[in-house]
């Protein structure tokens, strides 16, 4: 089993965190994982993306150049990465900020109203966790429980009070992706 993700959006949308939680949770589940961020001047321009590979075999390239699974949080990323996707791939995109559909007929595209759902739950900053819930629902590579364990470790005791709202966001995202 090998799952390759490309997760892209604006800096500040928490796309790197989505990737890290995926990788951390899968690592705790006993899988081989890698997480590779884009780095350099494009970061300063506000774009952020990372590649995550989860596999039961040793991981070769940690780069994902033709993503079988793309997680797209904003419109520029849609325009940039939709053409690079593998045939038959899965795209999850944030329809709150993307008013177009991917220009590809050979992939499955799933629209998730990440920001809308997060706002309804009362914390707009959990839009990335809504998306993580949708990823979990659609790919099954990790469970919400293991994602929550990873989030708990990432947050530490200071932010522990934020765990329930993040769980709610993941669950709502999973529901929306059904």
């Amino acid at each position, binding site marked *: 089993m090998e799952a390759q993700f490309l997760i892209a959006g604006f800096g500040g949308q928490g796309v790197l965190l989505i990737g890290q939680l995926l990788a951390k949770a899968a690592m705790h589940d006993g899988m081989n994982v890698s997480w590779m961020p884009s780095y350099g001047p494009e970061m300063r321009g506000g774009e952020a993306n990372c590649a995550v590979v989860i596999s039961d075999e040793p991981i070769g*390239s940690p780069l994902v150049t033709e993503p079988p699974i793309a997680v797209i949080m904003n419109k520029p990323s849609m325009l940039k990465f939709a053409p690079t996707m593998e045939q038959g791939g899965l795209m999850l995109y944030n329809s709150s900020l993307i008013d177009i559909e991917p220009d590809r007929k050979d992939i499955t595209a799933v629209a998730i109203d990440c920001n809308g759902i997060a706002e309804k739950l009362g914390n707009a900053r959990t839009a990335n966790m809504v998306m993580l819930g949708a990823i979990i629902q659609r790919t099954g590579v990790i469970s919400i429980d293991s994602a929550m364990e990873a989030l708990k470790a990432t947050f530490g005791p200071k932010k522990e009070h934020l765990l329930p709202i993040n769980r709610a966001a993941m669950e709502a995202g999973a529901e929306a992706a059904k």
Partner: protein
Amino acid sequence: MGQKMLMKGNEAIAEAAIQAGCRFFFGYPITPQNQIPEYMSKRMPKVEGGCFLQAESEVAAINMVYGAAGAGARVMTSSSSPGISLKQEGISYIVGAELPCVIVNMVRGGPGLGSIQPAQSDYYQSTRGGGHGDYRMLVLAPSSVQEAVELTQQAFDLADKYRNPVLVMGDGLIGQMMEPVEMPEYVKPELPEKTWAATGWKPGCGRERAVINSLYIDPSVLEQHNRKLFAKYAVMEREECRWQEEMTDDADFVIVAYGTTARIARSAMRKLRDKGIKAGLIRPITLWPFPNAPIQKAAEHAKAFLTVEMSMGQMVDDVRLAVNGKKPVEFYGRTGGIVPTVREIVEQIENMAKEAK
């Protein structure tokens, strides 16, 4: 082994160094290795006797390393290609004065400012000395974050053992990537005492006056010194050469690749095997000394070799020297920060297989 943690290569290297007893770090910011000095600046003040100092330049940083190593400390610096070029002066002096230290190079594209993306184009510089004069450094090339941790710790021991700098050579990808790491419990091996260090002396204190120096103005004395250094390198060549072989026993086509590129080559090798092409992989872990033995052995039965690098072809020279004309040695490389893909490597070997028929 401790608990598995997801760590960035750069941070894992820094922590591994501290675990191995490194207490002094001197560095200067440059992408893509900034997480090493950043991590050190956070951790060192919390470690007993730990000192992180941001130097005014790469040149100053390596000379601070010289001073600290000369005083007997475990010391490290890190940089990326352009910064490593600046450090070459100091590295040459450190070798000449026979001081142990660890230098990390997270290689980026060149020449000049080049790019900040991963590259392997500092192979010549690293394996042929790099600075002025006749010298060698042990060059360790990890291909995973876990291996980066282990090699960093070994680098300190090797540096002390040989009184010579050791270079840990990664690339932007090894430095920036996060992978699971188990931090090994560091056990210091038996190493010679640093009786040569400059720590304060007076007549009758039980040792000779320490002079940390690379100047030998008398040609015959300098020649003697160089012979002594090369006798050390001969021991390194005999005892420290490391590599990993996969499926080379029956391989018709042997890929030679190191670091990041070797990971991709391994995936390509598996794909080729699935397609019925007998591919194998030799991954040098020490770039100097270069693992000639497994290549010479494979040259007995393999049809051809393919060297894959993120450069225009540097290590391929060493592969050709090892193969010594017995079999064809092809090269495939990408540069500028572009990482070769599995598909590209598979295509190269498929073409070679067609030609061999």
